[in-house]
């Protein structure tokens, strides 16, 4: 199997090379056949990567510890879901996961745009394939996930860090990668447009959509990362400007800037060089982020460790990207000239421009501060560090300025706003700002940054409400329907504009959460049973300390009684878990009492078992849940902006319903209790009868011997005198004597040991069966892809140089629709 995996990667490498060569040659010679062959090779590449992924997942599921990567990042005792997640849990696999995602996304992008942007496709394919080729090259020469041990492989894996065995951690990296990967597609289209010189505004429409998708996933990934830090790391916050967090934030800034400035290009034909640059920079930053995480250039909690060779390879690739891209930008400058100039500084364009500068400055600042320790060491030889206070000091005013722009920008007219127009538009928002500010001051809020943030939020929300109400009123008059229908029609007609406003609402909600930080209170204290501490209006009393054990870990749990203003609220149980084999890294199980106004967040920091005393960090985090809630709103807004017209045409009335459901789903996904995150119980129980003759033998082959050999009882090399066999054997006999079936015995053992790791293989039911099935399913999908590709190549229809008239019509129609839609 490992050999097959390595071979698949090599084949993928060769296919990449072919796809690049064929598409470029085809485009230059205007040979449709060559181009199609290149595109076919590109699809084939995706199929190959799917097969390779299936092979690796299969190795994880079956515990093939002869593969080094599998051995390093998983072990037999892990629940299946985490074995699956181990695929991207380490460096080698994460690179492969990256390539696979890019191959799939790229194929989808090429497929959906193959008619509309016919002239760009060959170069899109070659840029995407070149990027993939670099990563496959990394794997083949340096980080092959299929590398095996040369000598005898270990019997069991080293296991995944317990910190990563968490619900959010299983989904946070894929979401980040999807965000990063989808930013490659706008880049590919941008470069293709530069190379071909088709720099009309058509390409930007293809790019816009993918940037939005990438942006959504990036936001999702960042939010999940925050949730993970909040629930799992136990320091009471969710963002600490760690280099790796920053790496994800950088492309987010530039992508956000692009999504705004692209409006200016569409409306006014300005900022064309700027937009191309943003697309390139965004892509560059995704690669740079990958580089930072994987090369050990910066110190970080979740860097992958130092790797000089990889650092040099990445540096070379990054230099290549920048030189190549900007050389083309400079070459095409004459074609990128703006059609208009800025008429006035009081205009929508100017607001967008300001927004762009601030976002870009944020990206620059975060990059600078993240790299500062490395830079200072290189320049002065002294390593100087900057901490979160430095970041906060800068990002706080920047955030507030952005929030102000969010409130004012949408109210400005294109080209030039007149004074009377401005007063008319800004009256209510500004009023809301002052009313909130005065109200807060009267209520005794004295944290200026948070107070200002609240007042600005009120202003932005008023702006958005005003936009919706005025737009709906105009539409109602025009169409003669009721206000509600008019509102939906309004959103349907310009989805991006109103979807964008909903995204703004989400951002405002997130800012409310950030502002809540200003009112955070915490206390650290050591308690003997009966002692208590008061934080805010919560009183926390330490009742007892309990130590319990299950098969996987030892758990130390503090039992606390919570009172709010003297009223009993119940108990909370923060804990520390010591996983077997990793006793040196206990995990902190935070107890959180969630509410929309504030979270009570308790960490068991230390304990003394003999005296029953515990040390707790108690934090009151006001408004923190609005951050997660704000993301849900943001996702809904982006979803509306992304909805295809066709879906909207017949679904106009359905939108609010669908949106509400989507919101609920997201909320449920985002706000699970800490308990859910840790639950790894697997359904057991099956009642298939079995023959009794070889019962004991069968059971022995099911159950792992406890002597530490990690093989089945039946094959334990220690022989019949093994203490494990002697211990387990009589138990099995006793159970079978009671007439228990094979399954019942197995269940009894699972129950007794608190986990399925006593079994040789996970029980073949329910979710487990799905997990077993998955690699095969993925493999089959990939294989089918390969067969389809091979078939298409083998009997080539007499290809006409041009698509038939009807196909061209649809393409043309689609393009026309696009342009008409964007006129309003």
């Amino acid at each position, binding site marked *: 199997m490992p050999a097959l995996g390595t071979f698949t990667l090599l084949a993928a490498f060769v296919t990449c090379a072919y796809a690049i060569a064929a598409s470029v040659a085809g485009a230059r010679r205007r040979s449709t056949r060559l181009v199609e062959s290149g595109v076919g090779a590109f699809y084939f590449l995706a199929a190959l990567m799917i097969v390779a992924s299936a092979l690796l997942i299969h190795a994880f599921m079956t515990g093939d510890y002869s593969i080094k990567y599998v051995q390093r990042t998983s072990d037999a005792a892990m629940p299946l879901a985490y074995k699956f997640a181990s695929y991207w849990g*380490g460096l080698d696999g994460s690179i492969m996961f990256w390539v696979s995602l890019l191959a799939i996304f790229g194929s989808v992008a090429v497929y959906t745009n193959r008619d509309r942007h016919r002239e760009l496709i060959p170069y899109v394919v070659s840029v995407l394939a070149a990027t993939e080729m670099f990563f496959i090259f990394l794997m083949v020469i340096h980080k092959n996930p299929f590398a095996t*041990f040369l000598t005898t492989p270990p019997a069991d894996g080293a296991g995944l860090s317990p910190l990563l065995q968490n619900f959010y951690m299983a989904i946070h990296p894929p979401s980040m990668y999807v965000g990063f990967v989808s930013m490659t597609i706008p880049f590919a289209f941008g470069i293709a447009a530069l190379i071909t010189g088709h720099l009309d505004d058509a390409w930007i429409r293809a790019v816009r959509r993918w940037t939005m998708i990438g942006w959504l996933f990036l936001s999702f990934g960042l939010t999940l990362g925050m949730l993970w830090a909040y629930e799992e790391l136990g320091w009471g916050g969710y963002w600490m400007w760690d280099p790796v967090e920053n790496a994800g934030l950088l492309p987010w800034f530039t992508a956000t800037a692009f999504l705004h400035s692209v409006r200016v290009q569409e409306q006014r034909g300005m900022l064309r060089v700027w937009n191309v640059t943003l697309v390139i920079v965004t892509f560059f930053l995704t690669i740079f982020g990958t580089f930072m995480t994987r090369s050990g250039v910066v110190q970080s909690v979740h*860097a992958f460790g130092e790797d000089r060779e990889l650092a040099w390879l990445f540096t070379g690739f990054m230099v290549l990207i920048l030189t190549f891209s900007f050389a083309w930008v400079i070459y095409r400058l004459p074609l990128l000239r703006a059609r208009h100039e800025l008429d006035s500084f009081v205009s929508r364009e100017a607001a967008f421009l300001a927004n762009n500068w601030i976002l870009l400055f944020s990206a620059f600042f975060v990059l600078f501060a993240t790299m500062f320790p490395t830079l200072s060491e290189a320049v002065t030889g002294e390593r100087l560090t900057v901490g979160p206070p430095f970041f906060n000091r*800068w990002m706080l005013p920047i955030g507030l300025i952005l929030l102000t722009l969010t409130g004012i920008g949408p109210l400005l007219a294109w080209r030039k706003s007149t004074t009377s127009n401005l007063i008319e538009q800004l009256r209510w928002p500004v009023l809301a700002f002052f009313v909130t500010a005065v109200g807060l001051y009267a209520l005794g809020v004295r944290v200026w940054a948070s107070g200002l943030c609240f007042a600005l939020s009120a202003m932005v929300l008023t702006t958005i409400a005003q936009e919706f109400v005025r737009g709906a009123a105009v539409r109602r008059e025009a169409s003669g329907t009721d206000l509600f229908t008019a509102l939906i029609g309004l959103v349907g007609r310009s989805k991006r504009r109103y979807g964008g406003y909903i995204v703004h609402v989400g951002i405002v909600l997130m800012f409310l959460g950030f502002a809540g930080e200003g009112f955070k209170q915490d206390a650290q204290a050591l308690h003997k049973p009966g002692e208590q501490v008061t934080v805010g209006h919560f009183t926390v009393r330490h009742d007892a300390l309990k130590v319990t054990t299950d098969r996987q870990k030892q758990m130390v749990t503090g039992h606390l009684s919570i009172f709010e203003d003297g009223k009993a609220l119940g108990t909370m149980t923060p804990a520390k878990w010591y996983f077997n084999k990793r006793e040196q890294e206990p995990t902190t199980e935070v107890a959180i009492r969630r509410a929309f106004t504030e979270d009570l967040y308790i960490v068991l920091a230390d304990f003394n078992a003999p005296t029953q005393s515990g040390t707790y960090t108690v934090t009151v985090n006001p408004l923190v849940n609005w951050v997660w809630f704000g993301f849900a709103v943001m996702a809904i807004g982006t979803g509306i902006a992304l909805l295809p017209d066709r879906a909207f045409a017949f679904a106009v009335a359905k939108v609010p319903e669908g949106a509400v459901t989507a919101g609920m789903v997201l909320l449920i996904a985002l706000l699970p209790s800490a308990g859910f995150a840790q639950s790894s119980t697997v359904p057991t129980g099956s009642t298939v009868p079995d023959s009794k003759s070889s019962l004991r033998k069968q059971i022995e082959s099911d159950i792992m011997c406890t002597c530490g050999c990690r093989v089945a009882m039946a094959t334990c090399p220690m022989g019949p005198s093994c203490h494990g066999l002697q211990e387990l054997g009589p138990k099995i006999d006793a159970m079978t004597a009671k007439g228990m079936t094979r399954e019942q015995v197995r269940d009894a053992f699972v129950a007794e040991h608190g986990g399925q790791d006593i079994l040789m293989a996970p029980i073949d039911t329910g979710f487990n069966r799905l997990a077993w099935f998955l690699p095969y399913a993925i493999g089959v999908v990939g294989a089918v892809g390969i067969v389809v590709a091979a078939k298409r190549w083998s009997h080539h229809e007499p290809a006409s140089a041009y698509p038939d008239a009807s196909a061209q019509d649809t393409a043309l129609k689609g393009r026309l629709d696009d342009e008409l839609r964007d006129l309003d």
Partner: protein
Amino acid sequence: MSARTIKIGATAAVLVAALGGLMYTTLSEGTEYYKHVDEVMANPTEWQGKRMSLHGYVVDKSILGKPDTLEYRFQIQSNGKVISARYTGVVPDTFKDGSEVVLKGQLGPHGFDVSPNGVMAKCPSKYEASKTPGAPGI
């Protein structure tokens, strides 16, 4: 040069200068030295009173905790040089004999005073285990 170019140039220059100046001043407040114990102990008086992140390894059996309080005294070392440190607060799980730590605080006449929440112990395994010699399978 046209008036337009001058205007744009002047605006850009002012903006860059203002931001640069602001960055420089905040940076000098916001930064701190990142030092190893042996570097500091080579000339301790020079470093007294300066804020820094101090890197070293906890000396075996040096951690003393006052019973029923959160006060700690311990020693950290690197390359044979030792420094004693005082700290009040909660220490991270990974803070124990021999662990690699970074302390934030400043050097006083009697040793290193760690500021609140200033103890950071490195995780023994990061996202992926570091390449420790002798570790299985690496």
